[in-house]
Protein backbone atom coordinates (compact mmCIF):
# COMPACT_ATOMS: atom_id res chain seq x y z
CA UNK A 1 0.00 0.00 0.00
CA UNK A 2 1.21 3.49 -0.84
CA UNK A 3 1.13 6.42 1.55
CA UNK A 4 -0.66 9.34 -0.10
CA UNK A 5 -1.50 12.89 0.97
CA UNK A 6 -5.01 14.16 0.26
CA UNK A 7 -5.45 17.93 0.18
CA UNK A 8 -8.84 19.12 1.36
CA UNK A 9 -10.36 22.36 -0.03
CA UNK A 10 -11.65 25.01 2.39
CA UNK A 11 -15.37 24.33 1.77
CA UNK A 12 -14.99 20.67 2.84
CA UNK A 13 -12.69 21.13 5.82
CA UNK A 14 -15.49 21.34 8.37
CA UNK A 15 -16.23 17.70 7.49
CA UNK A 16 -12.67 16.58 8.36
CA UNK A 17 -12.09 18.41 11.65
CA UNK A 18 -10.70 21.42 9.73
CA UNK A 19 -7.71 19.47 8.42
CA UNK A 20 -6.15 20.83 5.22
CA UNK A 21 -4.25 17.60 4.50
CA UNK A 22 -4.74 13.98 5.47
CA UNK A 23 -2.29 11.13 4.90
CA UNK A 24 -3.86 7.79 3.97
CA UNK A 25 -2.90 4.49 2.37
CA UNK A 26 -4.11 2.70 -0.75
CA UNK A 27 -3.09 1.33 -4.12
CA UNK A 28 -5.49 3.39 -6.23
CA UNK A 29 -7.23 6.75 -5.96
CA UNK A 30 -10.45 4.87 -5.21
CA UNK A 31 -8.90 2.95 -2.31
CA UNK A 32 -7.45 6.11 -0.80
CA UNK A 33 -10.80 7.89 -1.05
CA UNK A 34 -12.56 4.91 0.50
CA UNK A 35 -10.19 5.24 3.44
CA UNK A 36 -11.00 8.94 3.62
CA UNK A 37 -14.77 8.54 3.56
CA UNK A 38 -14.68 5.64 6.01
CA UNK A 39 -12.98 7.96 8.50
CA UNK A 40 -15.13 10.99 7.65
CA UNK A 41 -18.56 9.73 6.75
CA UNK A 42 -20.03 13.19 6.02
CA UNK A 43 -17.61 13.60 3.14
CA UNK A 44 -19.01 10.65 1.22
CA UNK A 45 -22.11 12.47 0.00
CA UNK A 46 -20.03 15.47 -1.09
CA UNK A 47 -17.69 13.36 -3.20
CA UNK A 48 -19.81 10.48 -4.50
CA UNK A 49 -23.31 9.94 -5.85
CA UNK A 50 -25.50 6.97 -4.94
CA UNK A 51 -23.67 4.77 -7.46
CA UNK A 52 -20.40 5.69 -5.75
CA UNK A 53 -19.26 7.57 -8.82
CA UNK A 54 -17.41 10.83 -8.39
CA UNK A 55 -19.82 13.78 -8.45
CA UNK A 56 -19.47 16.03 -11.50
CA UNK A 57 -18.82 19.10 -9.34
CA UNK A 58 -15.70 17.56 -7.80
CA UNK A 59 -12.34 17.24 -9.56
CA UNK A 60 -9.49 15.10 -8.34
CA UNK A 61 -5.94 15.87 -9.34
CA UNK A 62 -3.03 13.49 -8.89
CA UNK A 63 -0.17 15.97 -8.66
CA UNK A 64 -0.94 18.30 -11.60
CA UNK A 65 -3.10 15.92 -13.63
CA UNK A 66 -6.87 15.52 -13.46
CA UNK A 67 -7.61 11.84 -12.87
CA UNK A 68 -10.17 12.08 -15.71
CA UNK A 69 -7.12 12.24 -17.98
CA UNK A 70 -5.60 9.16 -16.30
CA UNK A 71 -7.51 6.02 -15.32
CA UNK A 72 -10.10 7.82 -13.21
CA UNK A 73 -10.67 6.38 -9.75
CA UNK A 74 -8.67 3.30 -10.77
CA UNK A 75 -5.51 5.37 -11.26
CA UNK A 76 -2.66 3.77 -9.34
CA UNK A 77 -0.90 5.80 -6.66
CA UNK A 78 2.65 5.67 -5.33
CA UNK A 79 4.30 6.56 -2.06
CA UNK A 80 4.45 10.33 -1.61
CA UNK A 81 1.77 11.14 -4.18
CA UNK A 82 -0.54 14.08 -3.53
CA UNK A 83 -4.23 13.99 -4.44
CA UNK A 84 -5.98 17.38 -4.45
CA UNK A 85 -9.75 17.65 -4.18
CA UNK A 86 -10.67 20.65 -6.33
CA UNK A 87 -14.30 21.83 -6.30
CA UNK A 88 -15.88 22.70 -9.61
CA UNK A 89 -16.57 26.44 -9.64
CA UNK A 90 -19.18 27.91 -11.95
CA UNK A 91 -21.78 30.63 -12.04
CA UNK A 92 -23.29 33.36 -14.13
Amino acid at each position, binding site marked *: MSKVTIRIPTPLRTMVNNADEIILEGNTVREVLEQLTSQFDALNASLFNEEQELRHFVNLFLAETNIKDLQGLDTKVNDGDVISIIPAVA*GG
Partner: protein
Amino acid sequence: MLKISTPCQSQLHSFITQGYPHETCGVLLGKQNNNTREILQITQAKNLNEEKPEVRYDLDPKDLLKADNLAKENGWEIIGIWHSHPDHPAKPSETDRQGAWSNWSYVIVSVTQQGIEDTRSWLLNGEEFIEEEII
Protein backbone atom coordinates in the same frame (compact mmCIF):
# COMPACT_ATOMS: atom_id res chain seq x y z
CA MET B 1 -15.84 41.15 6.69
CA LEU B 2 -13.49 41.07 3.73
CA LYS B 3 -10.38 43.23 3.56
CA ILE B 4 -9.15 44.11 0.06
CA SER B 5 -6.08 46.31 -0.19
CA THR B 6 -5.99 49.03 -2.83
CA PRO B 7 -3.35 47.18 -4.95
CA CYS B 8 -5.41 43.96 -4.87
CA GLN B 9 -8.57 45.86 -5.79
CA SER B 10 -6.74 47.59 -8.66
CA GLN B 11 -5.48 44.22 -9.91
CA LEU B 12 -8.97 42.76 -9.71
CA HIS B 13 -10.53 45.66 -11.59
CA SER B 14 -7.79 45.50 -14.22
CA PHE B 15 -8.49 41.80 -14.90
CA ILE B 16 -12.18 42.60 -15.23
CA THR B 17 -12.02 45.65 -17.49
CA GLN B 18 -9.58 43.85 -19.79
CA GLY B 19 -11.94 40.89 -20.03
CA TYR B 20 -15.09 42.92 -20.75
CA PRO B 21 -17.60 42.13 -22.30
CA HIS B 22 -16.93 38.53 -21.23
CA GLU B 23 -17.27 37.29 -17.68
CA THR B 24 -13.90 36.93 -16.05
CA CYS B 25 -13.17 34.90 -12.95
CA GLY B 26 -10.43 33.94 -10.56
CA VAL B 27 -9.36 33.12 -7.07
CA LEU B 28 -8.92 35.14 -3.87
CA LEU B 29 -5.96 34.10 -1.73
CA GLY B 30 -5.23 35.30 1.76
CA LYS B 31 -5.68 34.70 5.44
CA GLN B 32 -8.61 34.60 7.77
CA ASN B 33 -8.72 35.41 11.45
CA ASN B 34 -11.94 35.24 13.43
CA ASN B 35 -14.48 37.09 11.30
CA THR B 36 -12.06 38.92 9.02
CA ARG B 37 -10.71 37.61 5.75
CA GLU B 38 -7.82 39.48 4.19
CA ILE B 39 -7.08 39.14 0.49
CA LEU B 40 -3.33 39.09 -0.15
CA GLN B 41 -3.24 37.91 -3.76
CA ILE B 42 -5.68 37.73 -6.64
CA THR B 43 -5.23 35.30 -9.50
CA GLN B 44 -7.09 35.11 -12.78
CA ALA B 45 -8.50 31.83 -14.08
CA LYS B 46 -9.58 30.81 -17.53
CA ASN B 47 -13.32 30.91 -18.15
CA LEU B 48 -13.98 27.57 -19.87
CA ASN B 49 -17.55 28.47 -20.81
CA GLU B 50 -17.61 28.88 -24.57
CA GLU B 51 -21.39 28.89 -25.08
CA LYS B 52 -22.28 32.05 -23.14
CA PRO B 53 -19.04 33.59 -21.85
CA GLU B 54 -20.72 36.98 -21.46
CA VAL B 55 -23.18 35.62 -18.86
CA ARG B 56 -21.63 32.39 -17.54
CA TYR B 57 -18.32 31.20 -16.19
CA ASP B 58 -16.79 27.79 -15.60
CA LEU B 59 -13.54 28.32 -13.76
CA ASP B 60 -10.73 26.13 -15.09
CA PRO B 61 -10.02 23.63 -12.27
CA LYS B 62 -6.34 23.61 -13.29
CA ASP B 63 -6.18 27.29 -12.39
CA LEU B 64 -7.84 26.58 -9.05
CA LEU B 65 -5.20 23.91 -8.39
CA LYS B 66 -2.43 26.40 -9.31
CA ALA B 67 -3.95 28.96 -6.94
CA ASP B 68 -4.15 26.33 -4.21
CA ASN B 69 -0.46 25.50 -4.71
CA LEU B 70 0.45 29.19 -4.59
CA ALA B 71 -1.54 29.61 -1.39
CA LYS B 72 0.19 26.65 0.20
CA GLU B 73 3.66 27.93 -0.77
CA ASN B 74 2.91 31.24 0.95
CA GLY B 75 1.08 30.00 4.02
CA TRP B 76 -2.23 31.37 2.74
CA GLU B 77 -5.47 29.69 1.81
CA ILE B 78 -8.11 30.09 -0.83
CA ILE B 79 -10.65 32.37 0.78
CA GLY B 80 -12.95 32.86 -2.15
CA ILE B 81 -13.76 33.30 -5.80
CA TRP B 82 -14.28 36.45 -7.83
CA HIS B 83 -16.13 36.94 -11.07
CA SER B 84 -17.56 39.80 -13.10
CA HIS B 85 -21.11 40.65 -14.10
CA PRO B 86 -20.82 42.52 -17.40
CA ASP B 87 -23.70 45.02 -17.69
CA HIS B 88 -25.45 43.52 -14.68
CA PRO B 89 -25.56 44.37 -10.95
CA ALA B 90 -22.97 42.96 -8.51
CA LYS B 91 -25.54 40.61 -7.03
CA PRO B 92 -25.49 36.79 -7.19
CA SER B 93 -27.65 35.19 -9.84
CA GLU B 94 -29.56 31.95 -9.32
CA THR B 95 -26.78 30.23 -11.30
CA ASP B 96 -24.26 31.67 -8.85
CA ARG B 97 -26.26 30.37 -5.90
CA GLN B 98 -26.58 26.88 -7.36
CA GLY B 99 -22.84 26.65 -8.00
CA ALA B 100 -21.67 28.14 -4.70
CA TRP B 101 -19.70 26.44 -1.95
CA SER B 102 -19.96 27.35 1.70
CA ASN B 103 -17.07 28.95 3.62
CA TRP B 104 -15.85 30.93 0.61
CA SER B 105 -16.33 34.63 -0.14
CA TYR B 106 -17.80 35.35 -3.56
CA VAL B 107 -16.74 38.76 -4.85
CA ILE B 108 -18.87 39.98 -7.74
CA VAL B 109 -17.92 43.05 -9.75
CA SER B 110 -20.35 44.89 -11.98
CA VAL B 111 -18.66 46.25 -15.10
CA THR B 112 -19.93 48.20 -18.11
CA GLN B 113 -18.30 49.73 -21.15
CA GLN B 114 -17.69 52.80 -18.98
CA GLY B 115 -15.71 50.76 -16.43
CA ILE B 116 -16.19 49.30 -12.96
CA GLU B 117 -19.60 50.10 -11.49
CA ASP B 118 -19.76 48.20 -8.20
CA THR B 119 -17.86 45.60 -6.14
CA ARG B 120 -19.61 43.45 -3.55
CA SER B 121 -18.90 40.26 -1.62
CA TRP B 122 -21.31 37.47 -0.72
CA LEU B 123 -21.27 34.44 1.54
CA LEU B 124 -23.45 31.39 1.24
CA ASN B 125 -25.56 31.08 4.40
CA GLY B 126 -27.49 27.81 4.13
CA GLU B 127 -29.20 28.01 0.76
CA GLU B 128 -29.04 31.80 0.42
CA PHE B 129 -26.36 34.41 -0.11
CA ILE B 130 -25.83 37.16 2.45
CA GLU B 131 -23.77 40.24 1.70
CA GLU B 132 -20.37 40.53 3.35
CA GLU B 133 -18.91 43.93 4.21
CA ILE B 134 -15.83 44.93 2.19
CA ILE B 135 -13.31 47.18 3.92
